[in-house]
């Protein structure tokens, strides 16, 4: 795999191999062990499934704006 991080002229790290560079293998192995032992059930719900009504978004947007305006006025 070679050198994992290489510094460029500016001194920044250039990423060569993410996995073994920063996440050392010990952490990964331990984490995989924990996953096996935890009996985890994947959640069925995804973020894409979430829907919010447009009317509520509009209401919330105006409510937030009014709240910010009020806050600014009170701070003056």
């Amino acid at each position, binding site marked *: 795999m070679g050198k994992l991080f290489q510094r460029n002229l*500016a001194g920044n790290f*250039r990423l060569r191999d993410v996995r073994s560079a*920063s996440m050392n293998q010990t*952490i990964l192995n331990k984490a995989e062990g*924990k996953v096996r032992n935890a009996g985890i059930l994947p959640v069925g*719900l995804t973020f894409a499934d979430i829907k919010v009504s447009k009317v509520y978004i509009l209401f919330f947007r105006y409510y937030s704006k009014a709240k910010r305006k009020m806050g600014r006025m009170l701070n003056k």
Partner: protein
Amino acid sequence: MKRLIQILDSFSYGDAIGNHTIAIYARIKSKGFECKIYADLIDQRLISYAEKFENYQEEPGDIILYHLSTGSRLNRKVADFHSKLIINYHNITPSIFFKPYNSVLADISASGYEDARFLADRADMVIADSDYNASELRKMGYSCPIYTVPIIMNFDDYRTAPDKTILNQFVRSNGITNIVFVGRIAPNKKQEDVILDFYYYTKYFNPDSRLILVGNYNNLESYFLKLRKYVRQLGLNNVIFTGHIKFSEILAYYKTADLLLCESEHEGFCVPLVEAMYFCVPIVAYASSAVGETLGNAGVLLNEKDPIKTAAIMDVLLSDQQLLSDYRLKEEKRLKYFESDKHISRICSLLSE
């Protein structure tokens, strides 16, 4: 005396680019430059530093440092000046992230990219916050010299007093683990992935934990509401959205954080990583865009989005004191790289070229 003219679209109080602009302004004067700042929008608290863009009168020998980070009418206007034009590229969030939530932001971002391409032949030099930003510009056709200099951070600001109420409320060592992410509520930051990681962490590894999402959601209310509903439907009652808060409150959240979890998919630099290093908060971050190069080896870098594995990694890290102190040492070392003196000097020498 040479005049350095910094121009930016919005000169905002407390944001990374605003602070970077002020840091250059404050420090470059001592290096033999006269410095002025011009912007379209100026926060009232910064009015002593800057003037409206319209007031700028070009003089021979001016050097323009243009901070490019969004779509703006100024992006094309700066091309009309005859002075040396140096672009300080802070990156633009791709419009694809905004499209489902705010078409205006998506359009602004798309026009920002068009403008960045337009400036490719006009720029005399570019200073990019990261190699990632530099490579993006090369892909856009920039052939001028491009140098990477990280965003200038004034660590003195972090030494100011944190908010006491929040410190007391969320104090470390009260038995509850604080997982924190700092960054505006925005689709590129992928707070939904942070929430899902946290769901597995709190449900299977550490029920005595909470997630604090620090950041404002202005103009992205639809995304915020979707996140809030997601939290409710996952049955989580230990997730806090702070909304827009004061700097002293942000400091308090860093002071009380046990771990910074970042799942962002687009960052031109990612200031919160450096802030977390400053506060010795261990970091777990997904290796996208510039995240890997900013983090270096000072945290756990994830090369895949696997929420279950990420939750387990968080648990491994947080329950191993030796690992934690190893990473804190690495953070201390990495933080030294971001100390501003050498980078200000570098910017000065680049401006003098």
